């Protein structure tokens, strides 16, 4: 045991991670996931040195790559650790060095080699109208690709509003007939909702899977409860202003400068389930309400249709 711990510490050092940094990250992640602190050492083990890194096939459909970008901003752990030491990102169009035939080959090889064992991450919505013709990669429709790959995965994570619920291309009039990955494939997906979601919620879900061998508890829409269990409103640091009826009625006003409640400016916090006020974004730097802007409800289904105009009161 002692020997193992020593080796573990050495491995960490080789990776340029001090033990203190590593435990800080594990504690942060454990807290985000709502696990008790006794889990901290186990989280550490998951990230220390898996015998085989869990394979990930990351598919892109109709999307803006903002969710991939969000994951690139991961600091707990750093993205280079995620890619080099934690996961085996066997296919990801943005970061992979291979192109063309070789890229396609990577997808097919990984699918075959890890059938039933890989985590499939889907970013983007799937076109269904005109035989799915509005969205194609290498001559095949998103629909064909999703139907081939998703059922072979151990679990599928839909990352972002588009893969979860269809996103902006599914907003009216939805010319391409875009739908969520779940609707396109008939396979239940775990939904890391948001536009884009906080990378900590993606990483937390993956850790849960690696640590407990199962996916975290989900709400009725398929979103992990550790992240999407409470409304923005219930966790909002400006909640007291709402209760006291202290409202911002115009940007640039004295009330806005005082940091009063943004409900009348169209904040969708009361109906939106997410942990933004608690974990915040980019290493806990800020989140929309802190920057003086209402929540736009980006982790709720079909928010583009449901919550626009954004500046109209709920």
């Amino acid at each position, binding site marked *: 045991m002692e020997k193992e711990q020593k080796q573990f510490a050495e491995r960490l050092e080789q990776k340029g991670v001090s033990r203190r940094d590593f435990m800080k990250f594990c504690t942060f992640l454990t807290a985000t996931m709502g696990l008790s602190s006794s889990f901290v050492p186990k989280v550490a083990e998951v990230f220390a040195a898996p015998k085989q890194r869990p394979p990930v096939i990351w598919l892109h459909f109709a999307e803006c790559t903002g969710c991939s970008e969000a994951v690139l901003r991961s600091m707990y752990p750093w993205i280079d650790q995620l890619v080099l030491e934690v996961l085996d990102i066997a296919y*990801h169009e943005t970061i992979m060095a291979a192109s063309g035939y070789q890229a396609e080959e990577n997808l097919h090889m990984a699918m075959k080699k890890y059938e039933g064992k890989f985590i499939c991450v889907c970013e983007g919505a799937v076109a269904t109208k005109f035989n799915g013709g509005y969205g194609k990669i290498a001559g095949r429709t998103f629909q064909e690709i999703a139907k081939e790959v998703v059922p072979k995965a151990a679990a599928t994570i839909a990352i972002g509003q588009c893969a979860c619920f269809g996103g902006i291309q599914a907003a009216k009039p939805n010319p391409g007939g875009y739908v969520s990955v779940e609707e396109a494939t008939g396979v239940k997906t775990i939904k890391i909702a948001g536009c884009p979601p906080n990378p900590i919620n993606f990483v937390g879900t993956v850790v849960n899977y690696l640590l407990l061998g199962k996916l975290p508890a989900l709400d009725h829409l398929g979103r992990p409860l550790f992240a999407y269990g409470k409304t923005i409103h219930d966790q909002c640091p400006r909640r007291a202003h709402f209760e006291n009826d202290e409202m911002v009625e115009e940007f640039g006003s004295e009330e806005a400068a005082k940091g009063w409640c943004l409900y009348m400016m169209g904040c969708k916090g009361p109906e939106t389930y997410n942990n933004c006020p608690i974990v915040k974004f980019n290493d806990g*730097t800020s989140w929309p309400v802190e920057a*003086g802007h209402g929540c736009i409800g980006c982790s709720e289904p079909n928010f583009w249709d449901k919550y626009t105009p954004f500046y109209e009161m709920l």
Partner: protein
Amino acid sequence: MRSVEDAVGVQIPDNARIIRNLLHGAQYQHDHIVHFYHLHALDWVDVVSALKADPKQTATLSENVSNAPWGGATYYKNVQARLQTFVDSGQLGPLNNAYWGHSAYKLPPEANLMATAHYIEALRLQAKAARMHAIFGAKNPHLQSLVVGGVTSVKDLTPDRIAEFLYIWKETQDFVKNVYIPDLLAVASFYKDWGAIGGTTNFLAWGDLPTTNQEPESLFMPRGVILKRDLAGVKMAQQESVTEHVTNAWYEDGAPKHPYKGETKPLQEDPEYRPGGGKYTWFKAPRYEGEPCEVGPLARVLVAYAKGHPDVKAAVESTLSNLGVPVQALFSTLGRTAARGLDALVIGNAMEGWVMELVDNIKNGNTATYASWEMPDSAQGVGLNDVARGSLGHWINIEGGKIANYQYVVPSTWNLGPRDEKGNLGPVEEALIGTPIADPKRPLEVLRTVHSFDPCIACGVHVIDPDSNEVYKVKVL
């Protein structure tokens, strides 16, 4: 946002202008670093060759060419060991099955190891740099503090927030100066032949970063258009001269239209690609006075250089003399890649002054970040600026207080758009003509030019071998 502000006639406060400039500036720094290291470098850097490098010699090389804060034989030994562990695992992840060992890779193993180490450092740096956006913009990606009339982050105009911004700016700009630019020059010195490959003809920049409320006069990166590579003939660009063509795009046919009159009517069918003719893309073909134009860092730098922008002029001249190449070498894949670095350098350097301007305003009691406005019943407006990938224009028509028409022409449409009704090629297509390809089945050289435009798309490219006339479909990702 600018198009609506133009339509409703609101003048945003000075602080809002500065904060937007700081957010844009941070975007240039961030995007260009990510593009160079993570989306483009592996076209020039052979990671597998880095395993053969001698860490001591790499340390010496690194000390000679850069001022990177990391280095020494132990550092490079550790990076190499980390790579070796990764390769030995047999799970090559995103590095699997690329064109490693291709004859077009020219760097010695030590340069490959240095660049690979900086690839990894840049991954961390970019995550930190993105915090600049979160400070005044709530989060990155997808900022959420920008509204018609200004910005909402008035409560972030505090000394601690500004100091935090300044520290991250400094760390990022130190990286640009001490690592990115030296790496760029070191890599470029092995690929000078690329100074004659991959060029285009016309260049458009709407310009960006207004330093007063006068546009386009006060733009830090100026507005202009250069036709037929005539730098001396640079002239002011006019939005009225833009049209979009749909002959080869999957939209209902129609005459070329200015964006105010633009239509977006996708074909109601499965848009098959039919080799040998017909419509073949979702991109419209934007034209300036009927001509295709390259947009992006190279266009921006060329326009600024031609107009005598002192910072840009100095940066361009020192780069050309460092590499010992003539000014014509700018019109190339190498020039485009170098211009991206210089763009980050020049804009990044200017940001410190803008922060100080913000501080002065606050000292003088000016904390306004928003100007109120009213929605007119009917109006039209245009918003022009440059973003990391190039010129961006939004056009809006308002009727009955609602959007009647909205069109935008984005950088990748300019660069990757199809042929127009006269058969004129788009910039990327033009740039690829004459690219030497050592092995048509592994067309690394094509990736270099396509990636150099920083395309915002996974796109299809077709390569024809003139000897075998064999057509290869290559997906550039």
